[in-house]
Each structure stands twice: as C-alpha cells, then as structure tokens.
C-alpha cells in the first residue's frame, strides 16, 4: 500500500530532526547568517574631550584659576567624557525641578550654551557661558538672555519664539501649582512682555529694544545682580 498519512508525517518529522542535527554540526547553515555581521562592528567608544589649558580659559573667562579648577572637577565628575550631550543635559537639569517637566526649557538652554552647534557642550562652552552669566556686565547678561529667547538666532524675537519659551517655563512648574496654570497663562504673559518690550509695535523685539527696556526696569536690573556670588 502507498504511504499513508501518518507515515508521511513521521517521515517529515525525521527529516526535520535530521536538519537540526546537521545544523548543530555547522554543516548546514541557514540563510540568516548575513544578519549577524552587524554585531561585529563595535560601536565607536565615546570620544573623550580634553579642554583647553587652564591658562587659555583664564584668558577667555573672568574666573580665577581656583574657580576654574573647582568648576572642572564638578563638570568632569558628572561627565567623564568631557562632553555633555543633550539627553544628559536634560536629565541633569530636570533633577532640579522634580515637580514639572524641564526638558523643553533645557533644550533651549542647551542651544544657548552650545555655541558651535555641534550637539554637545564642552567644558569651554560651559565655562564661557557661566562667565557671562556670573561675571559679565549687565549688558552682556541681557545679550545672553536675548540669545536664549531668540531660538533661530536671527536677531529678532517673535511672538511664537517667546511663546515657546514661556510655555517651557510654565511647564517646569508642573501640575500642582496654586493657582492652577491655565492654558492661556503663557500667552497672556507673552502679551504683557511684548507690550512692555516692543516699542515700535512691529511684532518683534530686537536686541536694542530689549536692552533699552530692561535697563529702564528696576526690577529686572536688580534681579540681574542676584546671582553674582553663586560660585
């Protein structure tokens, strides 16, 4: 009699087992061997960045030698590779604001510090930025703030840019605030800001308008001095 159903099945099973045994011996290789070649590429180990010498940094910034040393120690502790990428930066900055979401504002900050726009902050960028913020003149600080607000760095701060910044600041507050942050709060704040700053009502704020208005506002001038002795 011919081969019946079960026998067919039995023969199929035997063939499968045979193939399994051959695979074990490496004689019979399946087609999927090409996918494994990618594993052999080692990822490039993270590049280590060495900062410029202490003397050069002293020339470029207004920190003393000791201050630079202590700043570098803190920096290197957190980022042994010498460079901070955006994700790490966001993580670090978010730890200061546990209640809200600081990632958007951290993104803007990152762009403000990363002057050569290469996606990572080196120690030089870090320390030069800090030097402006802590030891710079009021004009320099205002310049820095304007640079922060000007997201596309075109010299004008538009309402959209300001709204983005404002929303990110309000995001840092989180949900549990008193009074509750309403959705219109950032845009109202932006409107107030523009009312104050935009003298010629052209819908954008230029650097001159900005500096001029701030210099006339006592509150702002005083608060600029607030962090003089942070280091």
């Amino acid at each position: 009699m011919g081969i019946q159903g079960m026998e067919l099945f039995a023969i199929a099973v035997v063939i499968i087992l045979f193939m399994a045994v051959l695979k074990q011996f490496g004689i019979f290789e399946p087609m999927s061997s090409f996918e494994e070649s990618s594993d052999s590429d080692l990822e490039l180990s993270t590049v280590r960045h060495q900062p410029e010498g202490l003397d050069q940094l002293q020339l470029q910034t207004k920190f003393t030698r000791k201050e630079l040393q202590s700043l570098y120690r803190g920096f290197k502790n957190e980022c042994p590779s010498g460079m901070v990428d955006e994700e790490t930066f966001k993580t670090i900055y978010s730890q200061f604001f546990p209640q809200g979401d600081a990632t958007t504002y951290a993104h803007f900050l990152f762009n403000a510090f990363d002057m050569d726009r290469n996606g990572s902050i080196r120690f030089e960028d870090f320390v030069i930025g800090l030097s402006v913020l802590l030891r710079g003149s009021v004009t320099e600080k205002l310049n820095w703030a304007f640079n922060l607000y000007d997201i596309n760095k075109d010299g004008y701060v538009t309402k959209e840019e300001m709204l983005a910044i404002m929303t990110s600041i309000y995001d840092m507050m989180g949900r549990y605030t008193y009074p509750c942050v309403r959705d219109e709060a950032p845009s109202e704040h932006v409107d107030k800001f523009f009312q104050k700053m935009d003298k010629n009502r052209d819908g954008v704020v230029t650097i001159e308008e900005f500096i001029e208005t701030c210099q006339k506002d006592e509150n702002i001038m005083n608060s600029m001095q607030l962090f003089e002795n942070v280091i």
Partner: protein
Amino acid sequence: MAAGVAAWLPFARAAAIGWMPVANLPMPVAPAGKNKRQDEMIILNVSGRRFETWRNTLDRYPDTLLGSSEKEFFYNEETKEYFFDRDPDVFRSVLNFYRTGKLHYPRYECISSYDEELAFFGIISEIIGDCCYEEYKDRKRENAERLMDDQEDNKDAKPPNMTCRETMWRAFENPHTSTMALVFYYVTGFFIAVSVITNVVETVPCGTSPNQKEVPCGERYTVAFFCMDTACVMIFTVEYLMRLFAAPSRYRFMRSVMSIIDVVAILPYYIGLVMTDNEDVSGAFVTLRVFRVFRIFKFSRHSQGLRILGYTLKSCASELGFLLFSLTMAIIIFATVMFYAEKGSSSSKFTSIPASFWYTIVTMTTLGYGDMVPKTIAGKIFGSICSLSGVLVIALPVPVIVSNFSRIYHQNQRADKRRAQKMQKARLARIRISKQGTSNAFLHSKRNGLFSEAPEFTQLPYKMNLSEQSSTEEDQRLNKSTSLLESQHHHLLHCLEKTTNHEFVDQQYYQQSYLEAGLQNYPSRSPSLSSRDGVSGTCCTRRSKKQHAPLQNASGPAHMQPLTQVHAHPRGLQELSTIHIQPLSTSRSSLNMRVDEPASLNCQSSQITTAIISIPTPPVTTSDGDAHLRAGPAHQNVVKVSAL
C-alpha cells in the same frame, strides 16, 4: 538631591538669569553664602589610614555623619584632621559613596561589620546600588537565619518554674533534655517499628494448612496479632492524649501535620472495633487497614532527615508542579500520536487514547515493560522520539530538586520566597519615600517660613549684612534644617515661582483647591460663609483648632493674581493651626495659613486622605532632629484636617 548634580546647581542658578527679563515680580533674595570658603581639603584619619577629600564632596549628603556638623565631634585640633577609630577597609566604600553617589557592598566583607559601619556613618543600606544589592540582601538573610539557628540551640537552658504541662511539652519536643523524655522517645519508636512490622508480617503466607489454599499469618494467628495491634494502639493513644494535654496551643497542635498523622494511625483500629463484621462494610474495613501504614510516618518525629525531605518537597512545589505539568502535556501529545499511528495495524493494543497513556508513561520513564509495543513504522518512529524526549523532560527539574534538598539540609531552614518579594517592595517604597523628600522639602521650607524675608529686600542692593540682621535667627534655623545647597536649590525654585507668578503646592492641596474651585460656583456655599460657621461640626471630623482670619471673597475660580502689596507678616514662624485659603493673596506669608475645607465638601469627596506632606526625609541625624520635631506637629495639623 543627588550628589552629582549638586555640582551643577551653580549652573542651574546662573541659567535662571534667563527668566529674569520675563518675570513680572521681583525676585527673592539669594540665601547667604556666608563663610564662603574656597573649596578645601579635609583629612580623614581612619585608624591611621589617611583619606583626603574635598569638603564639597562630603557636603553632598548632609544627613549623614560626614556631611553634617556631627563630624566636628571627631575633629582633632592638634593634627587638624578628623579621626575615626573605625575599620579603614570598610571606610573606603563609605567614602566612595560620597565621591560617586553609589554605595557598593564588597563581597569579602562580613555583613554585620558592614552594617555597623553604615549605621555609624548614618547611611541607610537601601541606597546600595543595584549592582550589589542582591548580594547584600542574600548575605543578610543568611546571617539572620544563622542567628535564628543559634538562638534555637540555646533553648536547652531550662527556665525555672515551669509547670507540669510545660515540662511535658518540652520533654516531647526535645527528647534529650531529660532521661524520662529519652525513655519515652525510644519506647514510642520501638512500638512504631513493632506495629509496622506486624502489619507487614500479617500478610505473609504462613505455611500450609489442611486446606489447599495458603493462609496468611494474620488469619492463622488472629488472636496474637490482635493483641499486638491493641497494645500498639494503646501506646499511641496514650501518647497522643498526653501531647494534646501538654500542648501550649491545643488548637494549633490539632491542626499540625504530626498530630493528623497520629490520628490517622490510630483511628482505623477504633473504627474496626466499632464496626461489626458486616459483609457490606468489610470492603471499607479493608481499606481502613491500609491507613495503618501511615504509622510509619510517625517516624518523622524521630528522624531529622525525613523532616527535611518533607520541607524540600514542600519548597520545591513549583518545580514539582512544572514537572508534572510538562509530563502531562507530553503524555497526551504522544499518546494521541501513537494512537493514530497504530490505528491502522491489526490487533493493536492501542485501543484508545487513554489506553495509549500507559504506553507513553512506561516509555517516557524508560521503564519499557513491553506489554504494549508499536508495530507500524510510523508508530516505531514516534515511539523512539517519545522515549528520547522522556529522558529530557524528567531530567530537567531533578537537579533543581536535588540542589534544594542539599541547601536545606545544610541550612536547615528556608526563607519564604514571598517574604523576599515583600521586602523588595518595601525597599523600593523606602527609597521612594526618601526621594520624595526632595520635591517635598521645598514645600516644607515654604511652610516653615525658613526663607529670608519679604521681597521688598530685593529693592535694596544685595549686601548681605542687611539680610543678616533679620535673618540671623533664620539662619540658625536654616543651618539646622537645611544645608546651604538645599537653600540655594529652594531659592532657585522660588525664583521660578516668581517668574511665572504661580506657586508650587503639593498634590493634596492642589486637589483640594481644585474641588473648591469647582464648588465655588454655588453661591450659597461661598467660602466666607462657611468658614464662619466652620466651627460647627461637619460630617468630617476636625481635629485642629480653628482660627478665623479675614477672608476675601473669591469672586471666581482661581486665576492669575495681580501683584499685591507685600506685607511682612507679623508672626514669623507661627504654628500652623489652621488651613486657610486666601485665593487672591500672593504674599508668601499666606502660605502659612490654610483654611479648613468648608462644609461644602462632603465626606466622600474629602477622601483626599492623609497627606504625603509628612515625612520629608531620609534618616534624620541628631543635628536635624530639632527642626524636624518642630516641623512635625505643625505638619500633623496640616495633615489631619483633611483626614477623615
């Protein structure tokens, strides 16, 4: 706040300049960084080995010994170093914790010495990094078990003044405590053996009798066996009753396994006495005799190994269950296959699938009786696959059982797996609580009014001497309860509040005010009205005293407030005896007072239960104790208002 990011705090504060042009309100004064020393080296002399580190490194964890002022107790004036008379090897791990933020547990260290060092330096062991935590917990559990064993061994010391009952119980449980107990122990053991042998011998055919059939001894010498059985059962009954009498908790004793075995061992005899020699029940009677064999389990009181075997099987229940399950699956599969394979052949013994079960079991356990054998080719192929896989399926769980047995045998005890899971949850909960401290710490400081004062000071130049006058008192409190780092962090958060003109609150308060905002639409329940009659009881019990204060009418749901006059609040750090909602005032002082939820909230909605406001922190060292104590009762009141 994590150690590493403490280094970035100056950066975060500097970046806050970005908020300044946007803010509408003046910013608060920065905390005094007085005695702003240059970062200096500290020398820690631990039993002669000198460790040097920066002061900032140690300051990262202000609630530990080295990070707080507690280390001043160890300062040696002549050598200008801090001397600790402790183990320098373990100190390496402790110091590395400050440097890297992660605590590691070195494997070669003894667990109890490590624990002592951690306790001395004020570090909680939950902070041990994930890389070392499992090892730490395992060692700790082993150690605890070993200690428990030691304690059990010391039970032999006889406490005086034991009642007769307690003496008897001790005698039963520990036979080597007295001679009588030992005698009793051996006697019962002997009788158990006699009883078991009797049962066995009873069924042996004892020589031929005049009839053709061979008769078992039990039927030949009925009287003798009956007397033997009676004697054994007497002894067992007496023993059981004595144990029952002596047991400290009779109910628990009756539920224990050993007593059930005892009962099962003696019951058939009594049932047999009661039952008459009736034809109907003789089948059942025979069955009962089978239970007599359970007497052999009474030996487990006499044998440690037997007990351990029992424990092993109980603890390997999951592995055994898995074995059983996989075997069942395999049996069903192969039986089905064999049945259909053999269906074609004539005179096949594989008459049904259940009939094939027998073949499958015999083959998989490699018994191979040969009473059922496949005849077709397909059947033989599948049969061989069946026997090969049987070996595998059985061989896999067995080593697990074996290793379990050996471990139990050596340790003689086994921690409950479920307890370990509970401890993992508890550990995570503890870490979470201590981390919540950061986000809640800011809110606490606000409520305690530890900030230096009102924003009018921002109008003046930032010479610190001015704030020093008002804040010397505050500073002391500041130093006691928050470190400089924390106060700077809180100042940063405060600046953010001022920039956006909103305040941080905790979750519970937010829900309260949210509910209140919803309820303010009902004019009859305006907060002002209800706060006045708030003294009268509501359905929710109030435990705090009430204080009335002028309350502005809320004209609508909460919205952004215009800048109001800042008035220095007369009471600086007052007790928080009320909760008081002032919807319009933005003065920071108003934070200190909250109004009781008006009667508008019914019981259901104020299930905003006991707060998360409470425990702010990680281990409180003695230096922080005062401030926390003071904060404690204040918080209690805050909490209790909303509790049902």
